[in-house]
């Protein structure tokens, strides 16, 4: 045992009890973390990351049990401790930052009290001292106004603040080992950079070993020293970060890297390579190499279980063929999708969809008091004066942070939300405001795919029926015709015909989203709105869906509004990118000039905040001050002025900015700052796409 290791896990196997048998969720995993080292653990959902880190603390939920293996925390043999002794270790030697900040804080305790608890778990300090320290920690994690913060309840503060609090709780115990389980997954990119920065600083200060769990390769690339890649309860590869990205030694790692578009990729420039198939659920892994089923280079030997091959000093891989990979004798990339989507169709002609000055406000009910004191009625101004045009057969990408009004805009267009002002025209015909006023033909012309795949399909209707309905109702087919068409649709989204008889619960998330796509295409709409259709899917599945969307669109020539919070995805897919902030459009640009200044200061911040999956690019993210303002209290003038790093002065706060058009790039920017000035001050964002094959 090297005494420098803070965590040493050996041959750990963890299983859950399900339906009368033990199923391994972590199988034979060893890993070691040294003091001051940040170790990244990456893998798809369900690969066993959380199970592993919980087991590392010997904290497993009901039904979970450590079957074999050793866990050493410094000199302490965790496996030999009683529960009482474990509680002495928790919160002192190990600290944990969970994935979901909202539910990880007790909703009915003030956050200050919760922080005090972790500073003073067994009550050694005087309450006053503990409180003082708590306030200090609030300040350390950059929480504004610590006193007020401490008095708040969790629901009263934003997700970013909650996460900072949880980090403060963890760090305040001065642990030897800090475990972070996807601490930024649910946060916006702009918030994420703040948290990551904070972590970087604090970790450096504390000399603790860090185990960082995420599925975001970008984050790994930016902050980790060493990476373990987990798949189907096994760690299939382990390497220093730099090596891992420059030459992955496991086909799975390669698949992960290839699945996501990087900033600067466009559908014309690159095709995403999805990993075929999907991760097996626990207990269903194939024998031998667990990745065998999905591996492009699997051969006979792969049906025997590969040992953990030691590759040089610091690398390991569980691939029988690692030597061939090292020597570049085999290509471990996933096969490229057969057809490159061609941009076809006539993008000119009358706009498919046009909104003018579209505003959607949700009224807030006034209290009686407010009515009497004649306070004006307020409303949540979710969408403000949006002018949007979508050309035939083109894709408009809409990006914005959480709460910026993307979904509201989409719903407003579909007629699911009442517009307060402005007009919506479909094929130059004004749309009736209310859904029930729209005739079947109008309904047929527009379809939407919702964000959450599990809500998108009726869990009690067989897939076939779900697909049949629009065919019968909107396309006017008979039952028999619809049946035939359902099969075609399934084929179109690469599902076999027998899926028609299944229920959504028998499908994976990716498959459900395909069905949702198929339904949207069933009546061959003119306009298709995709509201974050992939953000809840695993990276390997995302790629397949993105490819499918591309392909379908180029076949059917539909116009598309693609909504996402991820600029790299929108940049990859869209013909035009629209950036939205607080319900107002900030910038409209083409994907090819996305990285060329001038940028709207908000776009600039978004671009810089994206952690790129390339350790060579050291990004210098722009930190946005403060929180997104409350949409019920929109800032006057430019909605972004309260957080704008390039704040000009008075004018931004008082006057609505003009739409400036950049002649060179064709960008339209909603800003007071002269474009020349922006060009002069903004540097080109470093993108990695050139480095890619």
């Amino acid at each position: 045992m090297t005494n420098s290791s803070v965590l040493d896990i050996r041959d750990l196997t963890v299983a859950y009890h399900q339906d009368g048998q033990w199923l391994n969720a972590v199988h034979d995993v060893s890993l070691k973390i040294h003091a001051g080292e940040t170790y990244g653990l990456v893998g798809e959902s369900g690969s066993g990351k959380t199970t592993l880190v919980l087991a590392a603390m010997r904290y497993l939920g009901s039904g979970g049990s450590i079957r074999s293996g050793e866990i050493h925390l410094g000199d302490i043999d965790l496996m030999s401790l009683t529960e009482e002794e474990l509680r002495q270790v928790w919160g002192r030697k190990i600290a944990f930052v969970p994935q979901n900040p909202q539910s990880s804080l007790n909703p009915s305790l003030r956050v200050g009290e919760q922080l005090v608890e972790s500073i003073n778990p067994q009550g050694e300090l005087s309450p006053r001292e503990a409180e003082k320290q708590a306030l200090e920690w609030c300040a350390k994690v950059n929480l504004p106004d610590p006193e007020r913060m401490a008095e708040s309840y969790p629901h009263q503060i934003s997700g970013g603040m909650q996460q900072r609090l949880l980090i403060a709780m963890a760090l305040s115990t001065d642990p030897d080992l800090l475990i972070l389980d996807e601490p930024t997954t649910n946060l916006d990119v702009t918030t994420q950079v703040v948290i990551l920065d904070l972590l970087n600083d604090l970790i450096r200060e504390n000399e603790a070993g860090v185990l960082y769990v995420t599925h975001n390769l970008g984050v790994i690339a930016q902050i980790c020293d060493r990476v373990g890649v987990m798949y189907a309860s096994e760690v299939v590869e382990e390497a220093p970060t730099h090596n891992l990205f420059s030459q992955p030694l496991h086909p799975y790692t390669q698949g992960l890297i290839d699945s996501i578009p990087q900033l600067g990729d466009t559908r014309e420039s690159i095709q995403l390579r999805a990993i075929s198939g999907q991760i097996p659920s626990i207990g269903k892994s194939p024998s031998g190499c667990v990745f065998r089923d999905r591996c492009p280079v699997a051969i006979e030997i792969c049906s025997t279980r590969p040992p953990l091959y030691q590759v040089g000093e610091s690398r390991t891989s569980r691939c029988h063929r690692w030597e061939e990979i090292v020597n570049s004798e085999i290509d471990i990339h996933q096969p490229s999708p057969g057809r490159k989507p061609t941009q076809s169709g006539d993008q000119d002609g009358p706009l498919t969809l046009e909104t003018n000055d579209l505003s959607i406000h949700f009224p807030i009910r006034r209290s009686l008091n407010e009515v009497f004191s004649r306070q004006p009625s307020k409303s949540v101004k979710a969408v403000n004066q949006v002018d949007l045009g979508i050309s035939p057969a083109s894709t408009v990408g809409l990006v914005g942070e959480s709460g910026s009004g993307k979904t509201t805009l989409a719903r407003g267009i579909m007629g699911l939300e009442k517009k307060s002002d402005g007009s919506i025209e479909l094929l130059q015909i004004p749309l009736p405001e209310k859904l029930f006023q729209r005739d079947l033909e109008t309904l047929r012309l527009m379809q939407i795919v919702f964000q959450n795949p599990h809500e998108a399909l009726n869990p009690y209707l067989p897939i076939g029926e779900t697909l049949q309905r629009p065919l019968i109702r909107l396309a006017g087919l008979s039952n028999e015709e619809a049946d035939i068409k359902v099969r075609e649709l399934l084929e179109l989204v690469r599902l076999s015909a027998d899926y028609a008889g299944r229920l959504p619960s028998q499908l994976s998330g990716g498959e459900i989203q395909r069905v949702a796509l198929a339904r949207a295409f069933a009546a061959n709409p003119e306009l298709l709105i995709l509201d974050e259709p992939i953000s809840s899917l695993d990276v390997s599945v995302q790629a397949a869906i993105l490819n499918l969307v591309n392909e379908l669109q180029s076949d059917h020539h539909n116009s598309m509004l693609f909504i996402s919070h991820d600029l790299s995805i929108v940049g990859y897919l869209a013909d035009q990118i629209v950036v939205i902030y607080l319900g107002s459009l900030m910038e409209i640009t083409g994907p090819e000039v996305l990285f060329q200044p001038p940028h709207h200061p908000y776009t600039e911040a978004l671009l810089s905040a994206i952690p790129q999956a390339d350790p060579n690019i050291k990004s210098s993210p722009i930190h946005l001050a403060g929180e997104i303002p409350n949409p019920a209290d929109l800032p006057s003038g430019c909605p972004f002025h309260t957080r704008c790093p390039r704040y000009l002065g008075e004018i931004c706060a008082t006057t609505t900015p003009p739409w400036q058009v950049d002649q060179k790039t064709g960008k339209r920017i909603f800003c007071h700052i002269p474009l020349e000035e922006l060009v002069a001050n903004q540097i080109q964002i470093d993108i990695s796409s050139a480095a890619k094959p």
Partner: protein
Amino acid sequence: MSRFILRRLGFLTLTVLLTSLLVFIVTQWLPGDVCRIILGREAGQGAIENCRLELGLDQSLPVQYLTWLGNFLTGDWGISFSTGLPIYPIVMDRLRNSLMLTLVALIISVPLAVALGVAAGLNENKPIDSTVSVGSLSVVGLPEFVTGLVLIQVFSFGLRDLGLPYLPANSSIPPQSTFLEALPMLILPALTAMLVLLAYISRLTRAGVLEELKQPYVRTADLKGLPRRNVIVKHVLRNALLPTITVIAISIGWLISGLVVIENVFNYPGLGRLMIFAIDRRDLPLLQAVIMVTVLGFALANLAADLLYGWLNPRIRLE
């Protein structure tokens, strides 16, 4: 918050008015005539007519209703048709009795139920849990008249036959009795009401504890290294008992008036029995008054539950 209360009070008023109207209409359909009932089967038609005139039953229905409503709202609850006595003191006296019974039932059952529920929840699927679950499921299904009879046999006659001190089989407490005077007679009916309540609350508490134990914040608390007791008391129970509190408050409404059967079995002078009396006698103003009090009590208990819930649960407060 004040808006919330105002809104709720508005709905409450609406509900109460609707109920009174509903009851008024329903009682119009009730067969049997209050005057015939008052005067007996031997009275002549003339006496009946006199009586109807005196009670204002000759007026049109809307007039009758509005008159009653107007008077009621101005605090004049009127005279009971069948007894000729002022309604207000009668109803208030019964309300007091019902509240006493409620109090005893709650005092006995709530701590016990919560303790059982917590114990069961913390020991899921262990013997204590199964015992509490099966026990409560069995008791919750027993009609009060069965439990009441059993309790009387055991604690009254059973103990008496053994020559031990025993509880009164009958709970007709004298009017204006103080709580302490009434207490011995309150025990058996309270126990009967309590069994149902006990089962209900303990099941709810158990479910609450199980639900909260699953929440990620419990993990956070555990991993802070807090002693297990702290985690349970400060974190789990605080949230787990929230729904329980609501149910307790609501059950006050039920206890006040829903104990018709128990009040009959024990001859306890509560509101429920008074209501049956009023129905039997077609004593509309009395019935209306009792129902108003009941519905108000029920609605207020509900409101109190919501307020309490909102007070204890900071998440609600924003709304």
